[in-house]
């Protein structure tokens, strides 16, 4: 290999690394803006221009009452819908990864369809159904909508996480005298639990952040994203940035805890084996 050739290759390597670095910078640009502007003391109604550094917003993150109550609405909706969707989705995932049955490939396609349908179609069509049936919009319709898009998501995520799971373990437990229920709860469930929790966390995040589907089915209910959308036309208080930064910190924390627990678990399991 000639000298020039090696140099060219090195430059190519560096160029690709730079491109990847720039892509990461691009990903974080708005995040930096969000965090930085949470320390801004805006003049007027919009928090767009940098004025003065202040800790005021962080000292009083909850003074914007409408914003805070909207956040609570979102968390409540997400809690209920995530629990329901996680149960329903996990059952589907277990059925799909454990059993061979007629209509399985059709089922796989059916599960992917809600994920690949544009949100605006899911939202507007569900709202049409509710209108047709004379169902009043509010908490119930929003939770129904969220469960609908979360089920597929949970099912697909859990299915991916338990792919390759050794279902004969359960058989072994039963051979040793465990009832099927006991074998499931004592052997299978603890092993697939991390996958279920990961899916639940992600679908919780999806629910809190959902805007388009909720927009069509909320009626007068105001979730966090809806509040931001409404506020964006009137005024944007810096508390929005504070709450967004808090959500970011909590999610990063959960992710770190999850990965630490995951690696500790893996080490423990390797120790056993």
């Amino acid at each position, binding site marked *: 290999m000639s000298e020039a050739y090696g140099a060219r290759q090195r430059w190519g390597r560096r160029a690709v690394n730079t491109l990847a670095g720039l892509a990461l910078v691009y*990903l974080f640009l708005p995040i930096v803006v969000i965090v930085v502007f949470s320390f801004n003391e805006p003049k007027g109604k919009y928090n767009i221009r940098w004025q003065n550094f202040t800790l005021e917003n962080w000292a009083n993150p909850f003074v914007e009452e409408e914003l805070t109550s909207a956040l609570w609405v979102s968390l409540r909706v997400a809690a209920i819908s995530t629990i329901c969707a996680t149960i329903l989705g996990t059952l589907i995932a277990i059925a799909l990864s454990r059993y061979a049955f007629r209509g399985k490939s059709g089922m796989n396609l059916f599960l*992917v369809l809600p994920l690949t349908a544009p949100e605006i179609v899911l939202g507007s069509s569900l709202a*049409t159904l509710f209108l047709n049936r004379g169902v009043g919009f509010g908490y119930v319709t929003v939770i129904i909508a969220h469960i609908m898009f979360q089920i597929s998501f949970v099912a*697909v995520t859990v299915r991916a996480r338990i792919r390759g799971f050794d279902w004969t373990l359960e058989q072994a437990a039963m051979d040793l005298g465990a009832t099927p229920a006991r074998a499931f709860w004592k052997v299978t469930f603890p092993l697939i639990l991390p996958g279920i929790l990961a899916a639940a966390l992600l679908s919780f995040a999806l629910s809190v952040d959902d805007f388009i589907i909720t927009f*069509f089915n909320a009626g007068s209910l105001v979730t966090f994203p809806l509040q931001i959308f409404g506020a964006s036309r009137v005024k944007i208080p810096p508390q929005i940035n504070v709450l967004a930064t808090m959500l970011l910190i909590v999610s990063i924390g959960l992710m770190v805890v999850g990965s630490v627990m995951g690696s500790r678990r893996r080490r423990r399991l390797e120790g056993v084996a």
Partner: protein
Amino acid sequence: MVALGLGAVAIAAEWVTGAASYAVGGVMFVVVVALIWTVIMGGPETRRALAPYGLLKPGVLWLCLFFLAPLWSMMVMSLSSKESRFDFFPSFTWEWSNYSTAFSEFGPQFARSFLYAGIATVLTIVIGFPLAYVIAFRGGKYRNLLLGLVVVPFFTSYLIRTLAWGNLLADEGPVIAVIDALRLEWFLESLQIMDNGKLLNTPAAVIGGLTYNFLPFMVLPIYVSLEKVDVGLVDAAMDLYSSASRAFRKIVVPLALPGVFAGSLLVFIPASGDFVNAQFLGNPNTTMIGNSIQDQFLRQLNYPVASAMSFVLMFIITIFVLLYTKFLGTEDLA
């Protein structure tokens, strides 16, 4: 199973009304009781055979009721009209003109949606591929950390992220300041990225927002397919005197293609139906089909035309999805 789903859809979508819906409900009830009966009375063999259906049932019923049935009501609504001006609610009349209205009045929005979503998809490939490539092949022990970094920005609210782009691109914002300092304005104007010294409220801003918001949907699938590539293959090619770029083109790219296809679908679909980016970063001449559907549905209360537009969007995208799954299956889409 299928019968239960169909029954649920039928009742929800008002195929059957009044007495008939009780009959269908009754049949569904009998089927459920029969199913439970066979499970209780049957031996372990039957139980095992029926177990998957039992597990699938609740979730699938939910999807039938709140995903399939709504699509049906949307289709019915798209062929409805108000018979008199005093009707509050449209009724089914085979009103095909809703579709011609959708195309004649909102043709530009359709065109823009697919154009913007298409450009955004290409941009996410251009930006996402090197990133996924570096994480997969040069990430080493930092792989998971880097993947985390790709996902972390998306733990903040979608709307707030998009508003933050508004801050960045504003007339006195940092991006314009950099462009001014580098004297790049003429260049960007000639590329039609800037418009009269503005970046915010231009088509470029909308496309940029779409690209940003859906970038991880491209990076992650490409990473997943690159991760499976055996680096030994590249080494083997180089040992056999292939150039680096040739090895890349002949080995890495073909193996990454499934990820690129899956990513394209996952970016293009939400981007084409989005209206947040056009709302926050665009101007009245950059509205997309999502803006029109939203406006017709929630503000003009013109449900039939809004449904017709949704239906067309759904139809076009379903064709893409079915073509994709026919050739590549459903595995990579999650």
